[in-house]
């Protein structure tokens, strides 16, 4: 089961309405957002989003003039208890894998952490060896 997830990264100018336009287009086409984060500088931002149909979403946004790229991330499940994230990150750093960025949300008994590691294949390998649970791509894309 593939555990590498295609994330969409969208270049957005800091202009009123650009984010609204992205979400409007996706919503209208029945594409569901699972997780996203915004990273911003003074004049532009990058919206990173995991959604139900990355390829279709990419085509749709490009056809509306957006600049979009697909990149690989993993989604890690960790119990929503103190110290669990630290354990997972320790495994990565012990294997010399760095994290470019990550975003997460915890609720109920599980936390979900989207990670963009420096080496995605090794990241998947070491996390799985350590019996940590990774989301399957199929879980993320279709609802």
């Amino acid at each position: 089961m593939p555990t590498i997830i295609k994330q969409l990264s969208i270049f957005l100018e800091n202009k009123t309405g650009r984010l609204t336009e992205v979400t409007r287009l996706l919503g209208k086409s029945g594409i569901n957002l699972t997780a996203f984060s915004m990273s911003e500088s003074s004049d532009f931002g990058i919206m990173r989003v995991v959604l139900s149909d990355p390829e279709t979403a990419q085509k749709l946004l490009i056809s509306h003039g957006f600049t979009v790229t697909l990149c690989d991330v993993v989604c890690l499940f960790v119990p929503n208890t103190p110290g669990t994230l630290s354990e997972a990150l320790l495994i990565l750093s012990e294997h010399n894998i760095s994290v470019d960025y990550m975003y997460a949300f915890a609720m109920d008994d599980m936390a979900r952490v989207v990670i963009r590691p420096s080496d995605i294949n090794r990241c998947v390998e070491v996390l799985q060896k350590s019996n940590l649970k990774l989301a399957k791509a199929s879980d993320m894309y279709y609802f």
Partner: protein
Amino acid sequence: MIWNESYECMGREEMREVQNKRLRTTVEHVYHNSPFYRAKMQELGITPMDIETIDDLVKLPFTIKTDLRDQYPFGLFSVPMSEIVRLHASSGTTGKPIVAGYTRKDLSTWSEVLARTFTSGGCSRNDIFQIAYGYGLFTGGLGAHYGAENIGASVIPISAGNTEKQIQLMTDFGSTVLCCTPSYALYLGEAVEDKGIKDKLKLRVGFFGAEPWTEAMRVEIEKKLNIKAFDIFGLTEVIGPGVSYECYAQNGMHINEDHFLPEIINPVTLEPVAPGEVGELVLTTITKEGMPVIRYRTKDLTRLMYEPCPCGRTSVRMHKIMGRSDDMLIIRGVNVFPTQIESVLMEFGETAPHYHLYVDRENNTDTFDVHVEVRPENFTDDMSSMLNLRKRIEARIQSVVGIHANVKLVEPRSIERSIGKAQRVTDKRNLYKE
């Protein structure tokens, strides 16, 4: 291919003789038939007797754009209106337009120099020309039109604009040659890319002028349209497009020296610069009848290249226009030419050749913002590399121009495209001028 070998490849000494003779004739002509030039020459205490060779050119008075405006509409014509068969006018962005009048012979000179241009780009009667310069008062459309007809090509006088139709005819008629402004060529190239029809086109060659463009822009146009792109130079005041043209070497534009005499001057001292140095191009027409111009200051910055060209033509070449002495912005006391910024941006593969400069004044200090589009295929998800790109561009501008610019990366296609001359500068400081 060479259209008129006897003139285009004439020995330098022989060319000089031709020029001497034609200059003398022109000076006689304006002295006797143009009250404007007679008065100017009398002011300097010279008569046609003082002009024997082209070395005497420096004795003659300059002509500047305001002279042409002051003489609006026909004051600079040196023949009676009955001799004038065509009128053109430049797009006067401020005040009155500049009017040019052509006699029948002037029109034939014009189509001659354009025939040289098109032949030099490898075109012949077997080509289909899509003329997407504006037709009308602007010299681009009709100028290119008659030049293309002169070599016997088939001409599509589609004029500028209506991109959908341009692409439809380009595909259906199998146009092999495109003539338009370089910014419109780029715009058409993008449209062709969008439609994914590059393979369906028969375009081979393009002639682009009426605004300055860079080498990197050439690479871009050539790639997008799969053509060889040639620069062509000219101005309404002198004749229109066709003053000079590129050959296959694409290294400088050959000046039609048997019709137009070039000089390069320092725009501040008005003295000639040393051979090969950059300065303002000054042109004297030596065959025109309707509206000859003497030492016309073009405001275009370039340099002359005297080295022999591999194409076999012996005429002097002028470098691609490096800027306009008019367009020069003075920002925080430093002279900045928009083309300098353009060249910097072109060095970076990650940005598209679309940019806009904003100059303003805040708290008595000039602000300088450069907006440039990122290229979709070079966008990366990595914030730090995007920020780094911005930083590298700023550093490069600082080192080339000598001042700091705030670079802003903007979304592709967010900068307005133009079908005519591109407006790339917004100087808000002008609002405060009287």
